[in-house]
């Protein structure tokens, strides 16, 4: 059995799954239920000045009949009084000393306020602090949340304030509502943060009610941009995580990966791209805390199969595989192959290739089943047919190199090789 326990800057948890700072971690009752279910730890919902929330807070995007492919919210930081939150944090720590307790913070923009809040959190015995530089709605208008994360200099300044009094590890959570997360990530690291976490939610409009013409979520006939999350944002989060893992300054600190983690596979992908652990929210908001069981057992079984004894054995392993386009081998060539024994004759590969790609699939009419085969000399190896095929391994991509030696774009151009292959 693999060891799936996790050590994040000395913050230990029995597994690498924390609940992200969000509604599921707003109250003791929720957090206790989560820890009882087996979660490795929590990031308590952001504490700060007293706020008031609106009613009608979430909206979602479905896909082909499945609910909540993407999810957004316009909820602010915790709207419960600070003293209640601090007391409950202390109580939970006492009840579950073996789980990670990190507290998210978003103080008003003054050095004193940040100092005061950091000290209050440290007094509870919490293991770490996460700085919320990412919330994209409500708080930004007050110069907080994403407004901080979007400006590297402000981010650096606040991290420096925090580090002046911090006695426990500090994680800075980055906003994705920027053209690149690297500048603010760098600033936070240079300001002294012990770790980074990303991504926070992405500004979004999830949809519009086509009867009333009011966008979602509807707050008394009006709406605002909400923070987008859930499975739909995972590929964007993975890309942003990769840029942090590739940068020589930001990759010096551990990263907690966030953004659409719903399954153990998602978690493994975040970790392969450099995350030390992951944080989860939308998936539990859809299914409840019970999903932790498969998150752990799936990870465990995969690690056993791959021969990884502990999570550190594979963290970051896929980062070197990500390169620049110019480095890709132009002699690498694959062509599709359709296995006629597995083909169910749905024609999806054919119409996709014929209408939108390279007319590389031959149709031979039949009644009622047509047969399809690849025209190898036309196939550019784009993968589209394989991607749309409903049968696993019916279409495979077979390697047929143009030449044995590797050649990248620069070398290709330097050699003056012909570019037009049509």
């Amino acid at each position, binding site marked *: 059995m693999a060891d799936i326990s996790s050590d994040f800057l000395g913050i230990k948890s029995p597994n690498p799954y924390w609940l992200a700072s969000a509604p599921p971690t707003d109250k003791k009752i929720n957090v206790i239920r989560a820890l009882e279910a087996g979660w490795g730890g929590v990031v308590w919902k952001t504490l700060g000045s007293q706020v008031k929330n609106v009613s009608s807070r979430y909206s979602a995007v479905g896909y*082909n*009949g*499945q609910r909540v492919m993407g999810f957004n919210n316009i909820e602010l930081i915790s709207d419960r009084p600070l003293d209640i939150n601090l007391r409950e944090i202390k109580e939970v720590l006492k009840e579950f000393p073996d789980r990670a307790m990190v507290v998210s913070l978003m103080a008003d923009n003054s050095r004193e306020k940040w100092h005061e809040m950091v000290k209050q959190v440290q007094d509870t015995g919490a293991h770490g602090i996460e700085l919320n530089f990412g919330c994209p709605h409500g708080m930004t208008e007050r110069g907080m949340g994403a407004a901080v994360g979007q400006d590297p200099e402000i981010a650096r300044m606040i991290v420096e304030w925090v580090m002046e009094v911090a006695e426990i590890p500090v994680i800075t959570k980055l906003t994705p509502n920027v053209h690149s997360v690297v500048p603010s990530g760098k600033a936070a690291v240079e300001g002294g943060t012990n770790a980074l976490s990303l991504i926070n939610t992405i500004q979004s409009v999830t949809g519009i009610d086509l009867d009333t013409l009011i966008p979602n979520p509807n707050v008394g006939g009006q709406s605002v941009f909400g923070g987008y999350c859930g499975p739909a944002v995972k590929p964007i989060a993975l890309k942003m995580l990769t840029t942090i893992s590739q940068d020589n300054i930001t990759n010096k600190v551990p990263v907690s990966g966030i953004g659409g983690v719903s399954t153990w596979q998602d978690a493994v992908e975040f970790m392969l791209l450099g995350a030390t652990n992951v944080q989860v929210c939308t998936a539990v908001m859809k299914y409840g805390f019970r999903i932790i069981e498969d998150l752990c057992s799936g990870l465990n079984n995969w690690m056993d199969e791959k021969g990884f004894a502990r999570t550190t054995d594979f963290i970051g392993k896929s980062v070197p595989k990500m390169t620049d386009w110019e480095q890709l081998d132009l002699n690498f060539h694959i062509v599709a192959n359709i296995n006629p024994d597995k083909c*169910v*004759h*749905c*024609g*999806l590969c*054919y*119409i996709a290739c014929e209408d939108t790609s390279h007319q590389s699939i031959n*149709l031979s*009419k039949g*009644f*009622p*089943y*047509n047969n399809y085969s690849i025209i190898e000399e036309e196939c550019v190896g784009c993968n589209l047919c394989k991607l749309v095929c*409903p*049968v696993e391994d019916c279409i495979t991509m077979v390697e047929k190199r143009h030449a044995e030696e590797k050649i990248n774009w620069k070398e290709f151009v330097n050699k003056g090789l012909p570019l037009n292959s049509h």
Partner: protein
Amino acid sequence: MSISGNRLNTEQYLANFDDIHPGFETKEGAVIEANRCLFCYDAPCTKLCPTSINIPGFIKQIASQNLKGSAQTIFSSNIFGGGCSKVCPVEKLCEGACVYNLMEEKPISIARLQRYATEPAIEHKWHLFERKTSVNKKVAVVGAGPAGLACAHALSLEGVDVTVFEKESKGGGLMTYGIAAYKVTPEFCENEVSFITSVGGIDIRYNQALGKDISLTELRSAFDAVFIGIGVGVARQLDIEGEDLVGVVDAISFIYNLRTKDYAEVAVGDKVAVIGLGMTAIDAATQAKRLGAKEVTIVYRRTENEKPCTQEELNIAKLDGCKFEYLASPKQVVGQNGKVSGLICDKMTLGEPDESGRRSPVSLGETFELEVDMVIKAAGQTPFESLIKSSNILHKNGKILTDDSLATNLSTVFAGGDCINGGKEVVNAVQDGKDAATAILRYLGVNA
């Protein structure tokens, strides 16, 4: 033993003849199933539909909750798309071709989805088609069944004024009078006919029988063209001794009674034998059982493997508690006091394959007797032979002969449906009606 009606109470009748097709109770159910559809290209399901409904297209429209568009897609290929979704043997057609079968997965519930899209259209008479202005051409359609009304609808859309002559007092043909009541309720059939005619330009004259109230000669002189879609008649004779005894009925008349009278008025025996294993035989057997017959035995000269009905139909009969005598061929109906008291059958075995590819039954020379008081004949139907023969129309054993465009040997006269093919599915009749309309429009010089 006796043949009588009034075997059940009102609740029992209503329960037994309630719509057998479970529709989607909720939009969610329909959308989930619609989303399972792969949206095949050049889809096998469409290819196996005689009317070539764009099945992936209408299913996609259910998924996108464009229900009107979905209904439009169905009805523009098959104006009986509502009824067909209830009576088509889909396991041999669209659903049988669904590629999910090749993945050993349950095929898409195409019929059920088609019901979901068509039922509200029929119920609320959605205005899905716009008739072109009249082109001052008149066409007579004989028979308001699937072939006739499909033809009438297609013609009317192009501005042709259509008069339909129907021998019964209601439209729908076999759909209304010849199919088990739990598959298509009488109310549904009436609604479907009025939905079809709601496009305008179709005048149905009821109680007008060809050869009695109207003649082909009159129609040919009064109309620019005539379409004959009169279907087929009674069940085939068994040509065995005792066939004239009281208690021997043909399945078509039996079901006709059931569809035109109160259930309590339809007489059925205590012990009933049904001859044949086609769709009509199953309908007759299950209906007899549901009317309160104590024992119903289906007698078929081949085995279950060669059955002409679908597995789903057979399952209904089995679940209704019908018994089966396979490899049995009726030899003689025996009676007492002029009434049926038994059916003597030859025991058969399967010999060489015949022209249908199925092994033909051969007598073993032994017999057995079934104790029954009613025998329902459902071994195929016969054309309206004398009616056809009384005109100058070319035919073969009463089946009207046409060319590929469904034109007969008589100028201006076209024909389609069961009266030319001897009895196929509703969906085949609909396609004939469409094809004939195309030919008639071409003949009339109306550009569709």
